[in-house]
C-alpha cells in the first residue's frame, strides 16, 4: 500500500475505519441470524413429543464455568487491543493467545457437553428440542471456532512480522467480533439454560 492511498484509506465520511463499520453491519445481520435461531428454540423447547426435555438434561453449573471463561476472554482481548495500540507487542501477543485459549476452553466444554448429551440419549434427531438446541449452540460454537482461528492468525502473523500496517484497526475489528460472540452467548445462556426455571 502506498503512502498516498494509505492516507486516503483513512479519510472516511464518518471518521470510522471502513473495516470496523463493516463489522458493525455484519453484527447487525448476525443479530437477526441468532434471533431466528433463538425464536425457533423458544418455540420448540417444550414441543417435543418424546424426551429428554431441557430440565432433564441441561447442566447449569458446568456451563456456568465455560460461560465465565468465555466472558473473561472478552476482558483479555481488551488487554490485547490496549497492547497493540500502545505499542506493547509482547503484551499483545500474550493476551491474544490467552483469548484464543479462552475460546478453545469454551469449545472443549461444548464438545464435552455435546458428547455427554448424545450418550444420555439426546441427539439432533431425537426431538425438536434437540434439533433446535444443537443448531443454536452449534452455530454459536462455529462462531467461536472461527474467532479462535482468526485470533491465532493474528498471533502468528504478528510473530512472523507480517502484522504491521493497520495492526491496531485489524485487532480492533476482531475484538468487536469477539465481544459480539460473547454477548450473544449471554443471551443464549439465559434463554437455553436459565429459562429451564421459567
Amino acid at each position, binding site marked *: *500500500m502506498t503512502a498516498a492511498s494509505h492516507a486516503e484509506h483513512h479519510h472516511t465520511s*464518518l471518521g470510522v475505519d*471502513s473495516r470496523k463499520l*463493516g463489522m458493525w453491519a455484519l453484527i447487525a445481520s448476525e443479530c437477526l441470524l441468532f434471533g431466528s435461531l433463538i425464536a425457533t428454540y423458544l418455540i420448540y423447547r417444550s414441543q*417435543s413429543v418424546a424426551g429428554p426435555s431441557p430440565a432433564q438434561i441441561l447442566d447449569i453449573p458446568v456451563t456456568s464455568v465455560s460461560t465465565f471463561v468465555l466472558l473473561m476472554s472478552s476482558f483479555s482481548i481488551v488487554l490485547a487491543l490496549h497492547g497493540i495500540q500502545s505499542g506493547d507487542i509482547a503484551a499483545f501477543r500474550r493476551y491474544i493467545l490467552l483469548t484464543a485459549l479462552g475460546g478453545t476452553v469454551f469449545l472443549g466444554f461444548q464438545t464435552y457437553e455435546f458428547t455427554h448429551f448424545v450418550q444420555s440419549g439426546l441427539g439432533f434427531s431425537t426431538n425438536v428440542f434437540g434439533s433446535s438446541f444443537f443448531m443454536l449452540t452449534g452455530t454459536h460454537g462455529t462462531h467461536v471456532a472461527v474467532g479462535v482461528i482468526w485470533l491465532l492468525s493474528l498471533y502468528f502473523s504478528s510473530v512472523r512480522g507480517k502484522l504491521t500496517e493497520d495492526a491496531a484497526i485489524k485487532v480492533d475489528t476482531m475484538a468487536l467480533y469477539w465481544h459480539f460472540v460473547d454477548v450473544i452467548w449471554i443471551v443464549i445462556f439465559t434463554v437455553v439454560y436459565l429459562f429451564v426455571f421459567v
Partner: protein
Amino acid sequence: MTEAVLPHPRENYGLSSWLTTVDHKRIGILYGVTAVVFACVGGIEAMLIRTQLIVPNNTFLSPDLFNAMFTMHGTTMIFMFVMPLNAAFFNYIVPLQIGARDVAFPRLNALSYWVFLFGGLLFHLSFVTGHLPEVGWFGYANITTKQFTPGPEVGLLGSVIPKGLQYPVSGTEFWIVGLQLLGLASLIASINFIVTILNLRAPGMTPMRMPLFTWVTLITNFLLLLALPVITVALFQILLDRHFGTRFYDIGAGGTVMLWQHLFWVFGHPEVYILILPPMGMVSEVLPTFSRKPLFGYPAMVYASAAIAFLGFSVWAHHMFTTGMGAMATAIFSAATMLIAIPTGVKIFNWISTMWGGSLRMTTAMWFAVGFLAEFTIGGLSGIMHASPPIDGQHQDTYFVVAHFHYVLFGGSVFGLFAGLYYWFPKFSGRLLSEPIGKVHFWLTAIGFNLTFFPMHFLGVDGMPRRIYTYAPGFNLETWNFWSSIGAYITLLSALVFFYNVFVSLRGRQKAPADPWDARTLEWAIASPPPAYNFASLPDVQARDDFWYRKHEAKTFKPEPEHVHVVLPNPSYWPLIVGAGITLMGAGFLFAYVLTFIGVAVTLVGAYGWSFAKFEG
C-alpha cells in the same frame, strides 16, 4: 506466499481481466449482463406456462413440469433477474453519484458477484440433472421435506464415485443450496454498499444532498442485511432435516410448518421492498431530469422510503391471513399493512408533482417512468385490497394475487428498471439507445404487459386457482386465459425489440456525450463511460443536485482534466477462488460431502491468500 503462487494480474482487457476485476463499473456490467441472461431463461419459462394455459385441458406441459416451471420462473426472476439487475445499478451508479473512486471493499464486491453467478448456475444445474425443484419460490415446509420431495433412489454422480459416498437428492436441494448462495452474495454486497454510502462520500456530500437513488440503495441494503439471515436459518433447517434427520418440520415429532411460513415471510416481505425500492429510486432520477425540475419534496421522499422499509419488517404475516393465526394477530398485521399505503402515496404524489409544471421531454426513459407510475399504482391499489383479511381470504391462491404482484414486480420493478436502463445506458456504454425503437419497445411492453396481467384479475375473482397446471372448459375461464397468453407473446416480442435496440445502438457510430440528458447528478459530470478512476479530483459538493447547480446556477462547472495519476486497487484472483470454494461447500450437499470439505479447504486457502496479498485501495 501469494506472489509465488499467482502472478499479479495486470491487463485491463481480455478474459482474465474480467475474472480478476475489482472495478465497480466492470462488476456492475457483469451483474447486468448475467441478470439479463437469467431473465431470458425465466422469460422462456413464463412463455411455457402461458402456452400450457392458453386453452383448457392442455397437455403441452405435464403437471410435474408445470410445477417446476412456476418454481424456476419465480425464483429466477426474483433472485437472478431483478435483484442482481438492481445490484448492477448499485455497483455502477452509486459510487459515481457520491463522488467515490470505488466501493469500500472492492474485492468483496467481486466475491459477491462470483458467489451470485455460481449460485445461479448451481441452481440451474437442476435442468442438466433432470431433477427440477417443484416447491414454489416460497418452498413451504413440509413440501420441502424428504417425505414429499424424496428425489430418485441413486445419487447424481452415478457410477463415478462409490455408492456410499453419495446420496440421492431431489430438485429441492438445488433450490435450497442455490438460494443459500444467492443470499450470501447479496449479504456480502449489502455490507459493502452500506459502508460505501456511509463512509466514502465526497467532501460536502451530506446525507440530505445524496441523490435519491443512492438513498434507496442504502435503505435497500439495510433491508437485505437484516432480512437475509432469517431465510438463511430457515434454509439450513430444511437442509439439516433432509440430510441429517433433524426434526424441524417433522409434524410427528412436534415440529410446526407455521415456523417456516413465519421465517420465510419475515424475509419474504422485506424482499418485496428490496425488489421495488431501487426502481423507485431510478424513477426518482429520471422524472426530475426530464421535467427539468428538482425532485418535488426531496426530504419527504427520503423519509417515505425509510418508512416503507421500516414498516416492511412489520407486515410479514399478511401473507398468512388464511392460516388461522387468530383475530388479534390478523387485525394488527392488517392495520400495519394498510399503513404502508401512506408513505407509498406520498411518493406517488411527489412524482406527479415533480412533473407538474415542468418542461417535459418525453424520452423513452421518461415513458417508462410514467408507465411505472401508472402500472405500479394499480398493483399498489390491489395490494391495499389484500390488506383486508376478508378480501384476502377470497383472493388467496387465485390469479387475482398473480395479477397483483406482477403489477408491482413487472409494472413496478421492470418498468422502473427499463427507465433506468434507457437513462443510464449512455453512461454504461458510451452509446445512446435508439429513441424511435425505444418508443416501439415501450408501447409493446405496455400493451403486452397489461394484456397478460389485467385479465388475471378477472380470472382470479372468477375463482381460477394459482399453481394448477390446467383448467376445465365451461367455467368462464377460456377467453381471458387466451388473451393473457397472447399478451405474454407480445411481451416476448417487446423483449426482442429491446435486444435489437441494444444491438444496433452498440454498433452505432455515434458516441454519447458525458451529459446527454442535461442531468442533475455527479455521474454525468464525467465522461461516458467513465475512466477507471472515475473522478480525476474528488468533487467538492456544494448543493443537492450538485452537477446541475454547478452547470446552471453557480456556473462553476469545469470539465475534468484528461490525464491524471490515481492509484487504483489492483485486480485479484482471490475473490474468484474464494467464491469457487464457497460454491463447492454448497455443491457438497448436491453430490457428495467430500466436495464440501474440499470447498472449506479452498475457501480457507483463498481467505489467507486474500488477507496477505499486496492490495492497494
